[in-house]
């Protein structure tokens, strides 16, 4: 079945022709790649709100985009606009405000924050009520319709669909920390079905607000090493103590190989395959035998029609939590066996932190840059290796290597595991 335009399974080959990225390290691919390959951390003390009394006071925040009033939803939208604009410009596809394909968006669950609740609660509408009844009366005045248009679960995708003119009903999704990879997977599936020649896939997250931080703190998921923020995220190290919240966005223009070639687009890489497996063990922990993570990796290899011998770099989920990094190692070991130690594996989260909903997309973007530039970004803060995790984590300094096929892992709270295999052209 394989031909130039079809893969081993007879499906259209899917290529990427545009990539955009924004993280605490900066705007766009160039700024990010320079910082990432030089081992720069984007993690800082939080200044956006008071951290008095909180156990974690650090995060990766994007503070160079002005949003007033600031909200997670508003920032998620602004970040997505940044990355999608860059991706569409690079792909040189469609016309302004008219993208020739659907939108698949990984976005955080929408929620009002304290800023919004305060505005509603202090609204003087002449009805004497307390608590939610007072806020509901405020809503009925009709003064808060802008808040409505930003704080629905479909709001970010609605605004993006209007702005970029994507076709049809956009899809917003959440598979926790695997969301970015799921958005890519949905786009790949749509192109493989032949429904569309192109898809815009975006992952975005702007969730560093006080309550989100408190919630992860209460689950004991976050690093509390506040003194040296840039040192706090240390995936695969023995002294790792939790992840560091962060935000950002990545966007992709994916196309069928046929459509990209027909219009003479520059091809940046190929999505060879994607795969998933759900875990049913626990809400925040994986099965002790790793079978769900292992299943996701194996399904992905199978979907891509590649073997473990084809993989020459792994872009890890590597969150820096004691649980994830151990389980990720055990799962990879089960799949790759003795070959694992010979495959470089690094975690972008050591520098940018955990961009949550956007992580799978941002890390796929960086994986494509590795393929294009032949540079593997390091895992920084690797000072105390964990003897139980035998991996070549590309410690502290970038490495030059010819990389043509990459496995990118994403494992989420709630048991949602998605992996991608990305490679160089030709497929």
């Amino acid at each position, binding site marked *: 079945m394989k031909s130039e335009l079809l893969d081993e399974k007879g499906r259209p080959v899917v290529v990427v022709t545009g990539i955009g990225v924004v993280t605490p390290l900066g705007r766009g691919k160039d700024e990010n790649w320079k910082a990432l390959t030089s081992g720069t951390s984007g993690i800082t003390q939080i200044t956006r*709100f008071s951290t*008095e*009394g*909180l156990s974690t006071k650090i995060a990766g925040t994007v503070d160079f985009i002005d949003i007033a009033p600031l909200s997670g939803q508003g920032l998620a939208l602004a970040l997505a606009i940044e990355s999608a604009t860059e991706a569409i410009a690079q792909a040189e596809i469609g016309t302004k405000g008219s993208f020739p394909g659907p939108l698949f968006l990984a976005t955080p669950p929408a929620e009002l924050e304290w800023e919004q609740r305060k505005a509603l609660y202090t609204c003087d509408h002449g009805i004497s009520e307390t608590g939610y009844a007072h806020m509901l009366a405020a809503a009925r005045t009709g003064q808060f319709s802008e808040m409505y248009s930003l704080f629905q679960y479909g709001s970010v995708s*609605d605004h993006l669909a209007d702005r970029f003119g994507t076709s049809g009903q956009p899809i917003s999704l959440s598979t926790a920390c695997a969301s970015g990879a799921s958005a890519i997977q949905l786009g790949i599936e749509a192109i493989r079905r032949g429904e569309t020649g192109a898809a815009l896939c975006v992952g975005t997250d702007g969730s560093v607000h006080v309550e989100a931080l408190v919630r992860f703190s209460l689950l004991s998921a976050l690093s509390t090493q506040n003194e040296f923020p840039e040192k706090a995220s240390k995936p695969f190290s023995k002294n790792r103590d939790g992840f560091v919240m962060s935000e950002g966005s990545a966007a992709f223009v994916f196309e069928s190989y046929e459509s990209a070639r027909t219009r003479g687009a520059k091809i940046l890489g190929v999505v060879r395959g994607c795969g998933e497996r759900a875990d049913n063990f626990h809400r925040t922990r994986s099965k002790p035998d790793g079978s769900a993570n292992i299943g996701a990796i194996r399904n992905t290899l199978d979907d891509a029609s590649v073997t473990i011998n084809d993989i020459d770099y792994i872009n890890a989920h590597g969150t820096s939590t004691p649980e994830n990094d151990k389980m990720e190692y055990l799962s990879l070991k089960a799949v790759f066996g003795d070959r694992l130690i010979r495959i470089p594996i690094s975690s972008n989260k050591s520098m940018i932190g955990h961009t949550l909903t956007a992580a799978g997309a941002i890390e796929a973007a960086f994986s494509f840059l590795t393929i294009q530039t032949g540079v593997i970004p390091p895992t920084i803060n690797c000072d105390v290796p964990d003897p139980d995790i035998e991996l070549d984590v590309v410690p502290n300094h970038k490495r030059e290597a010819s990389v043509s096929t990459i496995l990118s892992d994403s494992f989420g709270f*709630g048991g949602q595991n998605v992996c991608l295999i990305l490679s160089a052209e030709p497929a």
Partner: protein
Amino acid sequence: MDLNDNDVWVTGIGLVSSLGEGCEEHWQKLTAGTRIEPVLEKSAFTPYPVHPLFEIDFSKQIPRRADQRQMGKWQRLGTYTAGMALSDAGIAGNAALLENTNMIVAAGGGERDIEVDTALLDTIGGPQDGESLRNEMLMNDLRPTHFLSELSNLLAGNISIVHGVIGSSRTFMGEEMSGFSVVEIAARRIQNNQGELFLIGGAYNAERQDMLLQLDLGQILWADEFEPLWARQTKGGGMVTGSVSAFLVLESKKHASARGAQPYARLSGILSGRCNRTEGGAMRAAEQQFETLGHGLPRGPLALLSGACGAEPATSQELTFLEGLQDKGYEVALRGFGSVLGHSVEAHFPAGLALAALAASKGKFYDPFDRSGLERPSSDGAEHIIVTTWGPFHGEGMALVEEVA
């Protein structure tokens, strides 16, 4: 391969609403020959009437108390109903099938800890009002596991944990249209060999002030004495929300036949769109959808389950589209299921699809759901049923459900 191998069959239904639990109870109440009285909670959320959930013994589908405690009520409701659908389809407890079941859940979430919120709101404008007090209260008063009970993707997570669905787990967000997209994507995947067995659905708990607030920021709720759907337009329109959960097992004909599963109905077509709603855009979009889906449907009686939400101008626009069908020679037997179940946001389209599949399996359509006169009685059977769902501002969806001969 048989050309129809990839037909999309509905082989399992789990449905819970203010009317009761399960297909049979809904069928009996909605075809009793006497007009159904909607179940309403009129005082607890005044001025908003809502359709409340009846008392459910969750332990029938969620045996472990520890699991129940970890979930928000919408998650319990969804997990419960997903279990009903899996049992109904003969999948529950069958590890080999569950391992290949792909799950796509439509979810909102965000069930807040109202007590903590209220206490925090109380401090606004007070002597200690400020970020440090807020930080202290959040750190001390939020239950650590509360986060998981309000997180959108954890409904799917809980279904995996309680029922063992592990093929895959995806969660779509985005109000009404997310409930439509979960079905549309599952159907397209079945038709294109991207999976044979799917569990899809959504759950909505209407009996919450935080949920009402989310919606009424856009002034789209009905804040008055209850009126059925088609009677609200003259007073500006509005949604009356209802607690509903609907999950369905969708399966390729080939897969279902091989394991001897009986279909309720076939999902013969499903189309979504997102048009510019100004100047009749939605009506034209719906007309085009109907031309594609209804191509080949005989003129004459047409059963139609409308998911109209009651908000304006969307509901009036949908009625105009339906009048156009009459003009084309279709005698539409209209049933606005929001009048009896309430509008259930993410769960709304799955609930409409469940009602359609159920009617197709019975070979008979429902009694009118209101007294507006728009919903004429029908004794014409239910071989072909159109189901619609539109978002109040964006998104138009239409599906065709047919009897499996």
